[in-house]
Every structure is written in structure tokens, then in C-alpha cells.
């Protein structure tokens, strides 16, 4: 069966997503890396669903819905930020500093 290899691929993709988030400063690219991590998790769900029943696939369905909503809102936020600061580089977006 493919569970073991699938989980290994899932782990690799997830780690790559994390690496991307850590490496990049462009907000949109970081967002894409987050999507990559979500997909890695989806792969793990599907791999488990093959053995443990269809509920895993239904969960993937919900993850996708959440990812779509998140992408819509997240990109809107990036748009709003860009309008104010004319950049999406997180190095320059440090208003959180106390």
C-alpha cells in the first residue's frame, strides 16, 4: 500500500512549506507556502482515508473550503496593506512592534 510513501511525501511537502515561510519575505509567496502546507495535510488525510474510511476525504473537502475562504480574505488584506504602504515586503510591515 501507499500509506507510508504518501505520508513521507506529505511530510516533505509540509517541511518545504515551512521552509518557504521561513525563507521568504514576500507576503504573497508566504501565503502560497501556507497553501502548500495545507495541501501536504490534505495528502495525509487522503492517504489515511484509503485505509480508515471516507471521512478523511470529507475532511479534505472542508479544508479546501476553509482554504478558499482564507485565500479570499488573506489576499484582500494584502491588497489593503499594499494600498497603505505600497509594499508587500514583511520587512517593512512591522507595525506590530510595541
Amino acid at each position, binding site marked *: 500500500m501507499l500509506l507510508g510513501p504518501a505520508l513521507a511525501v506529505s511530510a516533505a511537502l509540509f517541511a518545504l512549506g515551512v521552509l518557504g*515561510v521561513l525563507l521568504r519575505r514576500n507576503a504573497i509567496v508566504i501565503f502560497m507556502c501556507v497553501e502548500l502546507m495545507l495541501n501536504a495535510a490534505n495528502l495525509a488525510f487522503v492517504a489515511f482515508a484509503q485505509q480508515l474510511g471516507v471521512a478523511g476525504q470529507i475532511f479534505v473537502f472542508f479544508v479546501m473550503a476553509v482554504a478558499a475562504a482564507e485565500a479570499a480574505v488573506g489576499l484582500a488584506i494584502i491588497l489593503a496593506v499594499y494600498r497603505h504602504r505600497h509594499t508587500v515586503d514583511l520587512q517593512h510591515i512591522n507595525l506590530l*512592534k510595541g
Partner: protein
Amino acid sequence: MPLPLLPPLTLLWVVPALPLAGSVVNGALALAAPRAKRAVSLVGVGVLVLAFAAAALAVVALAQLHPSAPLVVRYWEWLPVGDLQVAFALQLDQLSAVMILVVTGVGALIHVFSVGYMRGDPGYARYFAYLNLFVFFMLTLVLGASFPVMFVGWEGVGLCSYLLIGFWFTEKINADAGKKAFVVNRIGDFGFLVAMLLIFRHTGSLDFGAVFPKASAAFPAGGPVVTAITLFLFLGCTGKSAQIPLYTWLPDAMQGPTPVSALIHAATMVTAGVYLVARCGPLFALSPVGSATVAGVGALTALFAATIALKQWDIKRVLAYSTVSQLGYMFLGVGTGAYAAGIFHLTTHAFFKALLFLGSGSVIHAMHRAYHATHAHEDAQDMRNMGGLARYMPWTAALMWIATLAIAGIPPLAGFFSKDEILGAAFARGAVRPAWYVFWGMGLAAALLTAFYMTRLMLYTFHGPNRTGDREREQLHEAPPVMTGPLVALGVLTVLGGALNIPPLFGGGARLEHWLAPVTDVALTPAPDASPATAWALVASAVLVAALGMVGAFQLLRPEALVPARLAPPARGLGRLLWKKWYVDELYDAIVVRPVLWLSREVLWKIVDKRLVDGLLVNGTAAASRALGWVGSRLQTGEVGVYVVLFVVGVLAVVGAVVR
């Protein structure tokens, strides 16, 4: 065994409740209507008269029963804590009967006197509120059926004493005197508390009715525990009753209004220690060391204070040291085991010392008014400014002479019988323990000095030329009847008070002694009866000594030679030593007050408080918070990248915990 109580006995609570109610009403008036002096006088004096009537009824009821055990009336459970069960209970026996009569009787007379003395004072209502409150606490003290209830009264009278000494608190010297009395009394109260805890530790109870019957079983006679208890109790007494070494507050307490000095610092509160020793007689009987200490300290105080009184110029200070001295006599009596004699002297002393103080109050009142009328700023209490007052105040002079003869011990006045009783008992005890011969000798010497300084006081105040001043002289008048009335009443008591306890030697029935027998018999350590010849010799020596003192004063003192206080040269030599009160205050200042102040300022304040508490704890905590905050703020860079790194580290930690 509950005795069928007569109504006056079940209503015992009325006796202390009346002054308490008066205090509350007067306190309310002091806040709401300070000018309603008529109402204040009515309430303040009225409750005392009613309390006296209630007390008299209760005592009459008691006399009909004349039980051998105290009548205890329990009102409510007060401190039910584990093994400690203290009820708020009052008890009436022959001893507390005498005390409540003295307190309410003399108290009522002094309240009446106060109406005249304090008439012009803006704090009139406050004064009566305090005075009523004092009587309440004093009655609680003498009626309490257990050590804790008594302690409530004990502390309460201390509080009222503080409030009344510092009654005119706007002047620092008065406030300081109150503070001194309070602080010195704390030392004594510490002793009382320790004794109380020791008693509870060893008998498991604090009720008089439970402790005393158990005492001889719980404590081996002369054992260290009972000795410690009695000595700690006596430490409490030295504070409250102004004995060596804690007597120094009492002369300063004269800063209060004179009726207060009469009531609290002569007649009643300061005798609480004597009452305590008499009450705890079963304990003192078990401890020869404790009894000897009481008697020895009493005798020493009697002599020591009398020497100081020889050279004081302030009329009230003479009386204050006289009080200390007379209290010493009482302790000599109760320490000897002659409780009846001690209580007898307490009673007669309450009469004649109250009379003396009220008389001096009358004199001061007149002097003060005279100086006030001419706007002079002389000391109205200094005897050097008086002289010849007998011409202006004949009633006061005559009554104070009666009291002087009484305190000196001239028969047949009250003081003669009571003082003679004590000296006789001390002498008789000397046959068993020779130390008492010394105590007796000291008492006799003190009697000589007493006669001397009292005669001196009378001579300088009432006789010889007047030194008040020419313009002031016209303003000197006798006090109003509301003040002389109580004086007369006290004068009558002073003359007749001795009849309470005329000893068999003079054909009397020793009535007080028999009356007190149910209380004192359990405590009395038997002293051999002196033969009639010895007894007569003792009486003769006491009278002779008193007469010698008075005659000596007449011979040695020249009122004509005195000059007013502001012209007088400072005393020299022994006189200065006595005038400065043996420098005891200065000694205490040097060995206690200054080291404590130094310790407080240099160590506790500058090191412990400023460095340790402020520096390390307060500012240290603040600095630590600030440092932590600084570290935290460094972490909050606002850089999302850094947050992401930290977040991933957190995820690693969590996943790592799962994987392990």
C-alpha cells in the same frame, strides 16, 4: 451549683451597661450637639447615680445570701475556640461588691464635681463620654468572671486613661503624657497576657471559678510555673498600678483634667492591680517568691515615691507621687497576704485621695480663674504661686486638712485604720519571714515622709502669705457648691470610712474583714497573731511617726520664705535630686528610649527599611519587572519573520513532545 438568684443579681449587667449607655449618648451628643451641656450633665451624672443604686441593690441582695462561692451570671458564649471556652460572664462576690461600690460611688461624686470643673470647656460632652466609658470598663474589670473579660476591662480603662490624659491634646505635652501612659502600660499588659496564657496552658481554663479551685492541684506550691505566673501578673500590676519600675507614667498623667486624676489616677483604675492580686490570691498564696516580690516592690515604691513627693512644687505631682506611694502600701498589704487590709486601704484611699485631688482641683480652678481674669501666664498648679489660700477657700482648706490627717494616719480617720492594718500585718509576717521586718520598716519610714510632704503641701498652699499676685488675689474665690458638695461628701466618708473595719483591738468588729472572708480565706497564708502588747506598740509607733512627720514639717518649713515660681532659684544638692525625681525618667530615657530610637533610626529605618525593604524588595521588584519587560519588548520586534521562526520553534517543541 446554680443558686436561686434574686432579681438584682440576675440584672447584674445593668451596672456596667448604664455607664456604657451614658457614654454612647454623650458621645452622640458630643458629635451632634456639643452645646447641650445640660443634657450631657444629666446623662453623665445620672447614669452613675443609677449605676450606684443598682450596685447597692445587688450588694444588698448579695449580703442576704452571703454565699461562700461567687455568684456567676453567664450572658453569652464569647470565645468558643477549641479547648478554650470563654463566656461573657460577670461575677459578684464580696470583693467585687466592694469594688463596684467604690467605683460607682466615688465615680458619681467625681462626675458631679466635673460638672463644675469642666463647665467652660468646649469638649464638655466628649469629656463625659470618656468618663462614662471609663466607668463601664472599670466595672467590667472588677465584675468579669474570667481573665479575658477582666482583660477587656483592663485594656479599656487603659484606653480611657490615654484618652483622658491627653484630653487637651492640642498641647503636645498632654498628648505625650497620654502616649507615655499608654506605652508604659503596654509593658504591663504584656505580663498580664503571658500570665494568662500560662494559666491556660496549665489549667486548661481561664474562668476564675475553674482556675482557682484547681490551682493548688495544678501547681506545686512554690513551683517555678506558679512563680512565673504570679510574677507576670505582678508585672501587669506594676504597669496599671504604677509600681516600680513602671510608675513613671502616673505623675505625667496629671496633665489630664483634675477630676480625671482623682477618678482614674487615684481612686479607681490604678487600684486595678491591687484588685488583681487580691483576686488571684489563691495563686499568690502558692508562690512565696511572688508574694514577697509584691510586698517588697510595694514597700520600696511606697518609700521611694514618698521621697520624690518631698520636693515637688506642682500640687498635683505631689499628690501623684503620694498615690504611687499609697499604692505601694496596698501592694505591701496584699503581698503580705492581708488582702482585707489591702482592699480596706484601697477603699479608704479612694475616699481621701479623691478628696485631695478634687480639693486640688478646686484650688487649681480658683487659681486658673484668677490668672485668667488678669491674663497672667503663671503656673496655676505651682505651690510657690499659692499660699494663704485658706482665707479665700475655707471649705476646700478644711476638707483637705481632713484628708491630709487621714492619709498621714492620724486616728480616728480612715487612713489610720487601713494603714495600721497593713503595717501590723507586715510586722506579724516578719515573725515567719524576717524580710518582712524590713518591709515594715520601709512602710513606717514612708508613713513619716507621707505625713511630712502632705503637711508641706497644706502649709505652702493654704497658709503663710499669699504669693499669687496683688491683682490676682482679688479674683480668688471658693468653688461653687456643685464642686464643694462632692468634697463634703468625700470628707464625711474620709472621717467615717475607718468604721468599715475597726479591728478588734479597738473594740471593733473588723466588718470588712469578715465580709471579705469568703474571698480571702482561700488565699490567706496564716500569719501569727501579734500579742496585744505588740499590737498596741505598733499602733503607737505608727501614730508617733505620723505626728513626728507633721510636727517636723511645721517646724522645718517656712512658707513665709517662699518666693513665686518665676523668681525661685533652682534647687541644689539632694533637693535637686528629689526634685528631678531621682533622674529615673532620664535613666529610662538613656537605657531604653534612646537605644530603641537609635535602633529604629539607624538600623531599622536606614538599613532594614530603606535598604532592605525599599531598596531590595520594593525597588528590586520594580527593577526586575522592568528588566523582564525590557527582555519581552526585545522579543516583540514587530518583524513577522521573527514571529514565524519562534512559532515554528514552538511547533517543533509540541511535535517533539508527541514524538519523543
